[in-house]
């Protein structure tokens, strides 16, 4: 896994892979942090975590310089001490469940010193202790990251952490009905299928229920999400867009906790805790509640019957076993299912041949086995094996159907070796096999940039197929620190596939990070990336088995500047050059003749949680274009959004003490999210031709993506109140999307012969009420 400068519990870290070296002109233009007028004292801030579990040490008592009142870390293990005189000081932590810890630190006038301390558990051996590297937390000055606890309270996301990623710079806004470009995330102008979402190192087949309603993975069992929009290192592959790397919590907590949650969208529970001294677990499950009330509000209309109201469920369960120090074995199972069915006796007015049963169900199930071995402090080996099955079935009337079943097996090994304090070596292997069993009678699925003819008039492609795809990947790289302020990272990755045509690709990648002075970091990265075409594009029935892998070059340049009042400025410029893109072809169904260009600038100003206030402002300026083959003209990408502005704010107002049993306290929490985004490009329909066989009009499209929808803007608010009792807590929350009820233009709709048009408006104001009991 990627090296990280800091590890906060339950964090999202902005990509550290993009590491730059910038010209001095920019240096001169950057103001130093201004001196703050005021008393000549400094501030100490820090966090206390358990060295083994990485969990915050709630309510840990400590003293400064061995005198003065005993102070207490809060429910997140954090503390803040003000009014310290400049000079050396000492901190002593004496939590009853951990070994006493003493550290020295230095205070500067009008500055904040930050500490992260890993406390040894009271029953651990202090010497010769080997910990799992990913959980290791040493005393260091930490970088700023966004905490998951805060991220879950961001309004408009229903506490769904993966949806938080859609508030990050460089991520395009998706359709009102769901995630970007249908199911998936649009990262820095790349198509959704070009980016990967990984859970514990392995790709997840689906990210959201029903294309964007809610993520398939309960955010409360997640430890950390790394969002890597581009320029990522050799440990990641098979993607030319970005990476969302999600890690689940280790099950090493020493107490039981959990909750039951009920809302108009779904109901679920989570429970986690220890089984003896060396084993821990978590288990969570959710089921939608939409089907319980939706049929009651749908009017009884002749010709329409909701046979199966939309329903989804998901589950996650994990057991961790640490038989000896330095080893951890894990087994995890998770899965998801979406289903919906309705009956159309009368065909809809827009498409006359569509009638009968309309059904869809999609599910996947996974079993993960992993072993992490860290025999000493200098190296760690992580291995994992995952198997599962993905299935989908869809029927539209009596003639259109699609059935897919994909059993798969994948193994992975990652080695990290700290050769010296200045050199870390990384290597890995991955291998997998998947069998795509498909049976269908369906038109070819739509591709980015295409305008379809009427669905019922599209040619049906019928047949059955079994396609086995095998892959082997290997990578090696190193981090080298030739100077204290300079970090160089280089590596080489190989991805290879077996299918009707075998192909292997070598991908060099390089990045650097230079710390000009404390608080000012420059980064640069360059790398080559490959991605195998989608299964339907390689299909004998639907596509072209002779396709080659798509390719992209990434270039990234930027800097980060720490500012006063806990504020951090981040600026990144990026460009991507794409070629061998899969595009429709009249003769071979698909070919690799497409190319693309993407470039942009991301600016983010972020205030990390301090004094109960956090938030950020992110702005992206971007252009993403495609050329669909020789003789074609450049056009905008379907989700090219020139301007993306996001404002997120959160504020806590506690009104009571922390309850040690569960770490919560009485109080209010407020959240705000505002977005202002360019409208998506659209292809206008310039004429219609009457199709006498289907009593409808066939569209005649204009130039691809030659117009734009109006700007989108929306304000979401959220408020929580928690009653923290001695052994449990009750939270009530109200999440209101689109507070001022602005009906955004989501797409263009036309009259029957395309001579008139109007915008289809998005969702109105939606209040989302929920109640949650935690213990």
């Amino acid at each position, binding site marked *: 896994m990627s090296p990280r400068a800091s590890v906060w519990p339950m964090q999202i870290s902005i990509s550290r892979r993009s590491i730059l070296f910038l010209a001095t002109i920019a240096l001169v233009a950057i103001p130093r942090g201004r001196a703050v007028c005021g008393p000549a004292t400094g501030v100490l801030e820090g966090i206390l975590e358990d060295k083994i579990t990485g969990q915050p040490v709630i309510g840990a008592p400590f003293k400064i310089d061995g005198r003065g009142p005993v102070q207490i870390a809060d429910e997140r293990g954090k503390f803040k001490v003000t009014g310290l005189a400049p000079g050396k000081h000492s901190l002593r932590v004496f939590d009853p469940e951990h070994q006493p810890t003493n550290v020295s630190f230095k205070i500067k006038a009008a500055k904040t010193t930050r500490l992260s301390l890993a406390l040894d558990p009271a029953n651990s051996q202090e010497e010769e202790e080997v910990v799992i590297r990913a959980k290791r937390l040493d005393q260091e000055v930490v970088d700023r990251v966004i905490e998951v606890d805060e991220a879950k309270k961001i309004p408009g996301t229903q506490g769904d952490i993966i949806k938080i990623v859609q508030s990050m710079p460089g991520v395009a806004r998706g359709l009102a*009905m*769901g995630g970007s470009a*249908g*199911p*998936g995330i649009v990262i820095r102008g790349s198509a959704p299928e070009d980016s990967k979402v990984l859970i514990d190192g392995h790709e997840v*087949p*689906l990210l959201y229920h*029903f*294309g964007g309603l809610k993520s398939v993975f309960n955010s409360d069992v997640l430890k950390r999400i790394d969002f890597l929009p581009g320029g990522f290192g050799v440990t990641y592959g098979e993607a030319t867009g970005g990476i969302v790397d999600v890690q689940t919590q280790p099950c090493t907590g020493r107490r039981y906790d959990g909750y039951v949650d009920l809302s108009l969208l779904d109901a679920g529970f989570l429970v986690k805790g220890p089984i003896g001294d060396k084993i821990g677990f978590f288990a969570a499950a959710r089921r939608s509640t939409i089907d319980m009330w939706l049929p009651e509000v749908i009017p009884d209309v002749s*010709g329409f*019957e909701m046979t199966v109201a939309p329903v989804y469920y998901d589950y996650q369960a994990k057991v961790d076993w640490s038989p000896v120090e330095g080893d951890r074995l894990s087994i995890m199972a998770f899965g998801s299912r979406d289903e*919906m069915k309705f009956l159309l*006796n*009368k*065909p*809809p*007015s827009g*498409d*006359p041949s*569509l*009638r009968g049963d*309309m059904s*869809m169900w*999609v599910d*996947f199930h996974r079993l993960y086995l992993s072993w992490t071995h860290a025999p000493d402090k200098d190296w760690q080996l992580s291995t994992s094996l995952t198997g599962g099955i993905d299935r*989908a079935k869809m029927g*539209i009337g009596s003639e259109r159907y*699609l059935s*897919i079943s994909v059993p798969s097996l994948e193994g992975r090994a990652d080695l990290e070796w700290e050769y010296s304090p200045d050199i870390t070596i990384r290597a890995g292997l991955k291998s997998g096999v998947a069998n795509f069993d498909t049976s269908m009678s*369906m038109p*070819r*699925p*739509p*591709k980015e*940039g*295409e*305008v*379809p*003819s009427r669905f019922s*008039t*599209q*040619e*049906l492609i019928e047949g059955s197929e079994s396609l086995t795809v095998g892959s082997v990947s290997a990578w090696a790289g190193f981090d080298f620190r030739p100077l204290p302020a300079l970090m160089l990272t280089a590596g080489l990755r190989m991805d290879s596939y077996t299918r009707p045509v075998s192909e292997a690709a070598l991908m060099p990648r390089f990045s650097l990070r230079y710390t000009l002075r404390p608080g000012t970091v420059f980064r640069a990265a360059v790398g080559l990336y490959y991605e195998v075409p*989608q*299964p*339907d594009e390689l299909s004998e029935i639907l596509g072209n088995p002779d396709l080659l892998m798509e390719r992209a070059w990434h270039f990234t340049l930027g800097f980060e500047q720490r500012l006063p009042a806990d504020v951090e400025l981040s600026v990144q410029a990026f460009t991507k050059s794409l070629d061998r893109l899969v595009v*429709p072809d009249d003769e071979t169904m698909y070919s690799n003749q497409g190319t693309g260009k993407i470039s942009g600038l991301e600016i983010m100003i972020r205030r990390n949680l301090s004094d109960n206030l956090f938030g950020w402002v992110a702005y992206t300026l971007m252009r993403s274009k495609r050329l669909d083959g020789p003789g074609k003209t450049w056009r905008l990408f379907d989700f090219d959004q020139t301007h993306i502005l996001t404002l997120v704010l959160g504020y806590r107002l506690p009104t009571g003490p922390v309850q040690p049993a569960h770490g919560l306290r009485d109080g209010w929490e407020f959240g705000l999210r505002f977005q202002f985004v360019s409208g998506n490009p659209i292809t206008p329909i310039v*004429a219609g*031709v*009457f*199709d*006498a*066989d289907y*009593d409808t009009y*066939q569209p*005649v*499209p204009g130039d691809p993506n030659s117009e734009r929808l109006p700007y989108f803007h929306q304000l979401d608010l959220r408020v929580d109140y928690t009653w923290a009792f001695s052994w449990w807590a009750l939270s009530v929350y109200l999440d209101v999307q689109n507070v001022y009820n602005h009906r955004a233009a989501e797409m263009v709709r036309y*009259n*029957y012969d395309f001579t008139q048009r*109007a915008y289809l408006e998005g969702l109105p104001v939606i209040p989302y009420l929920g109640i949650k009991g935690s213990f």
Partner: protein
Amino acid sequence: MKTVAKIGLASIVALLLASCSSPFPPQTLVERLRILDIRAEPPEVGPLDTVTLDALVADPAGEGRPLECYWAVCLVDLGWAAGDIDCPGGNSFPLDGDCQGANFNLPELVAWLTEQGYDIDDLPQDLPPELMEDSLPLFVGIEVRAGDESTRGIKRVRVNLSGDQPNTNPLLTGLEVDGEPLETGEVVTVDLGADVELTPVADESTRQTYRRGEEDQDRLEDFLFSWYSTTGEFEDRRTILDVDSKGRRLDINDWKLRGEHAEQGPSKLWLIVRDGRYGTDWLEFSFEVTSSD
């Protein structure tokens, strides 16, 4: 998986859009030059057939102005982002005809295709899927011009070389208005502001049973009715000869002579039936909408 989710989501969006209330005048309201249907007799071309084509053209605002009609057989790609559907025009085989109709026969068609580099095996035949090779997207097209207005329509050419189960056009025989049969040529008076129940009457002996290949099951043709008028709106744009699970007839329609699209005066109504296999028929009716005031 993502492909299925994408298709599923796109289909759901399309269906919901199709079912949502529209800000536009309904397709059933005929206010300007329109092609409402194209018929081929027979609907499938056999080796010895001469196909007669005619089109149902409505021009309610034209006040009897002359129409010009141009016919052709074309190769049309209705795939994704297809560009202009250049039919008639482009790569086409012009037919002799006018607004009363046109005709062609298979030898003429094959001769033209041979010039384009195709042969008889490329003709679109209604065969089982496993026997269908890449048949040609063959259409007849009509362009109707009236003054500055013009409109185009296309219809698929189907070929039956085996002679097995040739498809025939369905037959409409009449219409019932509030349960009473409408006589041919009769002009019925209806009230502005009323809802009029209309029941199509079709000759069900023309509703064929067919199979797509020897392995297929027997299938009964659908009779799908399309409704058009120069005033008012319909409860359903299309109805179907069937009943739902509660026994409600799905072919009956309500003609709503109220709202912004209803006007008193003479009105035309067209009823069209399609069998789902490119067979079709239509009837035209005249009404007098009177105000009850």
